[in-house]
């Protein structure tokens, strides 16, 4: 019965400990809805046939139902509605209250990706690995705008807000791959802000976690520390990258060569660009600085004049740092820059 209704209603698989319970209320509500709609429709149809007009000047009796009939028609549906909301709230509390033995994972959303980090452990972009049959609490936050973490198969969704933490939890039942969507509109690439939950057998997960920790420790032992904040003080490239994040450059510019709202920064330095309105320009330091301060002066052909000016917002050294960062974005070295990769390989199906 459960499986039949799930398929009829096009619901995804019930892959979390609470999914089935949530769906049962779903079935009850939808079936009542359909029955009631049909009943109202059939009653109207019956009245329509039974009480069709028989003459052009026909009159009708003035009818007024007694008060107890009115009260009944208010009390019965209200009783149903309140029962639903009671049960719904009950389930909602279960869905939002993580058990005390949950394993924590931090979820950081930004335009347009999901990052997952384990306390004292590895972190990853786009893939959340969790063990089956163990409650996992997610602590969500966002770096820029509001996003929403949605796993249909688990029947969970929670907004990730900038400047605060929200939480949700789930306990996956079976190993497998489950898609994650961003459900709150967050800009141009909202519909590509996907990720997946990979549910592993508990023992596999444990050994995976140990391996990841070992890899991270090995890296920390070396002389090169991956700590971003330390190097940013002395390294203009790192500083430029951080500034680009802070000023939202990546909302429109990519660093991997894919076209977006603005031209990609990959291999931008010394590239010859055709301009809107004719002519070309070589993207040297001068042009890049001018584009930050007076972006509409020379717009690269094929792009909309939408970039805001950063005049008065970026100081001279800051603009220089961003230019240095752009200059560092060469397709050749980027491929070899091991330190920029996550500490383990994201697993893609």
């Amino acid at each position, binding site marked *: 019965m459960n499986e039949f209704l799930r398929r009829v209603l096009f619901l995804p698989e019930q892959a979390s400990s609470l999914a089935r319970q949530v769906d049962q209320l779903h079935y009850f509500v939808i079936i009542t809805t359909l029955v009631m709609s049909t009943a109202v429709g059939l009653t109207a149809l019956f009245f329509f046939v039974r009480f069709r007009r028989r003459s052009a000047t026909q009159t009708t009796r003035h009818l007024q139902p007694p008060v107890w009939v009115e009260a009944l028609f208010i009390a019965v549906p209200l009783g149903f509605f309140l029962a639903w909301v009671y049960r719904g709230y009950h*389930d909602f509390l279960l869905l939002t209250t993580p058990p005390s033995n949950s394993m924590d994972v931090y979820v950081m959303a930004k335009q347009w990706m999901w990052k997952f980090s384990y306390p004292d452990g590895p972190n990853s972009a786009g893939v959340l690995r969790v063990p089956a049959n163990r409650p996992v609490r997610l602590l969500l936050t966002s770096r820029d705008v509001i996003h*929403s973490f949605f796993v249909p198969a688990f029947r969970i969704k929670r907004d990730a807000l900038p400047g605060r933490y929200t939480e949700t939890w789930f306990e996956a039942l079976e190993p497998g791959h489950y898609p994650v969507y961003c459900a*709150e509109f967050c800009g141009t690439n909202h519909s590509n802000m996907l990720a997946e939950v990979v549910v592993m057998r508990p023992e596999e997960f444990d050994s995976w976690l140990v391996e990841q920790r070992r890899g991270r420790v090995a890296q920390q032992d070396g002389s090169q520390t991956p700590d971003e904040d330390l190097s940013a003080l002395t390294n203009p490239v790192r500083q430029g990258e951080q500034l680009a994040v802070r000023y939202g450059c990546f909302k*429109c510019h990519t660093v991997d060569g894919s076209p977006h709202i603005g031209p990609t920064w990959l291999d931008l330095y010394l590239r010859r660009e055709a301009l809107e309105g004719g002519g070309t320009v070589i993207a040297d330091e001068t042009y890049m600085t001018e584009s930050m301060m007076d972006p509409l002066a020379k717009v690269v052909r094929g792009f909309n004049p939408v970039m805001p000016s950063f005049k008065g917002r970026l100081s001279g050294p800051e603009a220089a740092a961003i230019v240095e960062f752009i200059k560092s974005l060469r397709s050749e070295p980027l491929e070899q820059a091991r330190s920029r990769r996550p500490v383990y390989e994201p697993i893609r199906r």
Partner: protein
Amino acid sequence: MSLSAAEAAPPTRNYLNAETTLRSWLLTTDHKRIGVMYLVMILISLFVGGMFALLLRFELLTPGPTYIDAITYNRFFTLHGIIMVWFFLIPSIPSVFGNFFLPIMLGARDVAFPRLNLASVYIYVIGAAFTLGAMIHGGADTGWTFYTPYSSTTATTVTPVLLGIFILGFSTILTGINFIVTVHTMRGPGQTWMRLPLFVWAIYGTSIIQVLATPVLGLTLLLLFVEHAFNFGLFDPARGGDPLLFQHLFWFYSHPAVYIMILPGMGVISETVSCFARKNILSYKAVAYSSLGIAFVGFFTWGHHMFVSGQSNFDSGAFGVLSMFVAIFTSIKVFTWVGTMYGGAITFKTPFAYICGFLFFLVFGGMTGIAVATISLDVHWHDTYFVVAHFHFIMVGAALMAFLAGLHYWFPKMFGRSYPEGWGLVAASLIILGFNATFIPQFLLGNMGMPRRYYNYPEKFQTLHVASSAGATLLFFGFLIIFIYLVLALKYGQPAGDNPWGSRGFEWNTSSPPLPHNFEKAPVFDREPHDYTTPVLEVSHAS
């Protein structure tokens, strides 16, 4: 179904031909002419908003990019929402039929403040001009909900759109004040509150919401404008603001706004059900007071839009319960309309087809509304196509059906001509069918987990998206047919006669089209508004 062939000739001098210069239209303070001007403007808005909807549906035919890029798609759905909500649905029934019929139903020669009424038209035009300007400059990409901090940081032209809606709000407020004062002070002799037509009750309830809620929207959009244009930190946490504050303020307006859209429609249905069932409204008082009940309780349910936003669980529970109480008023109305048919003398005309459509969409849309207010279920449905389908059932399904029912019911009165009944039924069936084909797949998409506002989507969703787009095309042809036959009927339609439906509504006591000042002599109200215990024929000659 003309009751008397002799009455067919329209009055030689009426509000349409008393003066014909352009100036006489642009500077008119006649509530009927203002109603007609609103009708033209909101039909343009409906067309523009509908075109955006079709463009969106075409983009969604394939999982990847189809013919526009992501940012254009985002701008289109934003403009679709803004135009449909603020430029079509909110002014539709109150500003067109409310303006035209409320004074006539009360036995008044005009609204209380005719010049304010004219001002509201021009404020609407200015607001629309701002939004149109923004559209030409690319348009905002925030969605009609303007959620912060995305809307306060996006590089698109949000500012003129915000200003346009801010300005439009004054038009809504002026109309609301005008109607409230008119109902209080300009009722004709003998018209007590319990003899008000139910359409007047619905417009009265709507006006209260308009006057109380719209200033909150204006304030909220102004704050967002200040944040976007001058970098004030109000909603953006990076500047010390609170993003949830925006959602609370926005929905404090926008949930009552849903009732601004649907309540007048419920008024239209009360009038038309009574007329075509030729029967007094069962439980008149219950319908009248439930309009006020919706207006009041509707203000306390906004948090059901925020169950997964991070608001406290206690809030979510409280808003869930309150939502059930607002739903019960709607269910009272539904039972009453169906009950009105009991013991009636029903005839199936085009407006009645829309009544049937309305009942189905309101019951199904309303019940799915209760489903999404059931907190645990909303976690899965929130921000998916299920919610999109639910509110389109109410806002397009029910509200638009009511608008079309009203348009077909009152068209003969407004313009003195009748439209071809056969084509009316064809278009009505096409629209009801097309609507179901468009939005029932979207309920299923939502169940599958398809999030809303997605430009690209996984392939498993494609079949249902194609079905939905096909339905939208059907819907388009339905509207096209209506547009063609109504425009032709304006010129070539048979003269309708004063009371072609044999209605007991007070507005049918005037000539069709009505005189410039509505009546030869002020009418006296000596009966209830939906009283069919005496033959109608006698009444239609009484004026």
